[in-house]
């Protein structure tokens, strides 16, 4: 029974389900470090999905799809930055507005460009390539882990590493973190914190467009209304859960993907779907409680150790 639940394909499902979350979350944690909690990611992903399709369909090249998605990501990032950084508007409201804007615009363009409503798929849409490394397929585990994923899966892993290095090992990364933690301190050493915030929200736009392009060109080969389906919000949760640390956030996203995939499989064992769908959410809360409790216990222990210190 358990072997039915836990097997290699579960890992595959996890990776597939988590990748869009990882990509978006990596973008969101950049703005988070710059002091902006971006809940507009949902909409940014959606735009990425749509323009990915547009590019791929009209230039019959998945690369063009990604490029168009990225352009859209940059533009929406700039708009977001303008309102949040330039006008210092409430990032929450702007985020929600971006989401509404995206879902309206995509549906509108879907109709005006492709003359369809709801969904668009076509053999002329060129999907993103899948990669495989010869030799790995000898070892089953490595095979499922590293073989024939869509290219963005690998990109997402690389990004986690790159962003970690950027944030903690490069001056620019330090500036970004400073711009969120204490902008004035950055200003007084002659670096514009505004600039850093802008960079972060544009980068977030781009990474979300990756997530979107991955959904519509890598994971699937079609576009449907609101196909981002709340992944933007789950990404936010992952960021908060992971304390905006790239590694931890990645882990959080993976955990989400895992329990999502697990839930799907538990259904066929007769658990009502409503409950299997609850699993990722419940697990997140429980995990948070456990993590913090342990943390508190640690502190308590340390206190007791020093009890004698008086």
């Amino acid at each position, binding site marked *: 029974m358990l072997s*039915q639940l836990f097997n290699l*394909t579960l890992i595959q*499902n996890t990776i*597939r*389900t988590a990748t*869009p979350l990882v990509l978006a979350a990596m973008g969101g944690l950049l703005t988070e470090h710059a002091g902006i909690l971006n809940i507009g990611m949902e909409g940014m992903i959606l735009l990425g999905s749509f323009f990915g399709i547009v590019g791929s369909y009209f230039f019959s090249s998945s690369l063009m799809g990604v490029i168009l998605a990225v352009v859209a990501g940059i533009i929406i990032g700039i708009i977001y930055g303008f309102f949040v950084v330039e006008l210092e508007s409430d990032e929450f409201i702007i985020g929600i507005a971006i989401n509404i804007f995206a879902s309206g615009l995509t549906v509108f363009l879907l109709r005006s460009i492709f003359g*369809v*409503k*709801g*969904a668009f*798929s076509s053999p002329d849409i060129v999907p993103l390539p899948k990669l495989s490394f010869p030799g790995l397929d000898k070892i089953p585990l490595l095979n499922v882990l590293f073989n024939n994923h869509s290219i963005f899966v690998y990109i997402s892993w690389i990004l986690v590493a790159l962003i970690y290095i950027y944030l903690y090992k490069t001056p620019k990364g330090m500036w970004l973190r400073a711009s969120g933690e204490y902008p004035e301190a950055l200003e007084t050493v002659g670096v514009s914190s505004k600039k850093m915030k802008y960079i972060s929200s544009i980068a977030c736009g781009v990474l979300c467009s990756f997530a979107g392009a991955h*959904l519509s060109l890598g*994971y*699937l*080969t*079609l576009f*449907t*209304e*609101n*196909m981002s*389906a709340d992944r933007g919000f789950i990404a936010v949760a992952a960021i908060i859960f992971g304390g905006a640390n790239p590694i931890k956030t990645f882990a959080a996203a993976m955990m989400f993907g895992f329990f*999502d*995939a697990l839930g*799907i*499989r538990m*259904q*066929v064992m007769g658990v*009502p*779907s*409503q409950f299997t*769908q609850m699993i990722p959410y419940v697990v997140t809360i429980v995990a948070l409680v456990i993590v913090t409790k342990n943390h508190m216990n640690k502190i308590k222990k340390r206190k007791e150790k020093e009890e004698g210190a008086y």
Partner: protein
Amino acid sequence: GCGKGNEGKEETKPATEEAKEQKVDKVGLVVAGGLGDRSFYDSSNEGVEKAKEDLGIEYKVYECRNDPSLYTDQLIQASEYAPIVAVVGFEFYDVVQEVAKEFPDVNYIYVDNEIEGIDNLTTISYVENEGSFLAGALAAMLTQETSIEGIDEGKVIGMVGGKDLPVIRNFKAGYEAGAKYIDPEVKVETIFAGDFEDPAKGKESALALYSRGADIVYQVAGKTGEGVFEAAEESGKYAIGVDTDQRYINPDVIVASMVKRVGASIYDTIEKIQKGTLEPGKVYYYGLEENGVELSFGEPDMKQFVTDEMIEKLEDIKKKIVNNEIEVPTGK
């Protein structure tokens, strides 16, 4: 008469006002979701479109985008626009009864539910489970047809449902019964994606089913179903479409579709109303007998997986169902 609120509306819509005077028959089509689902709602849209061409009616579509707070509003706007209102979506169950009382002169065609005893309200109920029975039977036959590439010995078939709802459970009941009828050993596994608008989730669910040995997956999940087809393509397996003939989406993996002939039934009813042959206030069941539900296999030029024997067998089952030799279970 339609009282104040109605007058209020008329002020707001001079355009439709003069239209009324021209005594052209009009139909308002109210859908719970939105057009573009490439299945249920689109099919109903085709129905009125056909009526426009053949019966010379005008029509206008009112979408509620699955927003319950719009059901009443849109229904009323439609009722004020046209003497015939086609209402599509089980969600309208309460609302349509309420509004129908308010507009006695409007003829309501309520699709996909069952209400009796309201004079100006005719309901069209599809016997999904009958159609799904055939789908199940077909899947059960195919899953052992190892001659087709990608089909293995294992007797497992699957279904991906949108949400865990009474209607969908009704599909499920028929599907499972159909499979068992062919071969009691066939294992039917169902996954509810929990969403009608998340193709990624649909693909994930289907892939899970395929990875568990299912050769054919029956999708009853709206846009989520689009993902099922992709999963089939990717894992070299097969799928059955729903509501409209969806084979065109991907003829290589979609072997058939269980069609609810929503459009046709709406068209018929409009025609009946024009001819005055409609018995209002009753439920018209559209099952296999009425060709309200059926399996369809796309255009002849498409690659066919379903053999003639299978077709015969299905025909035979259909007969048996029609004259009640087979009792198709319902799911609530």
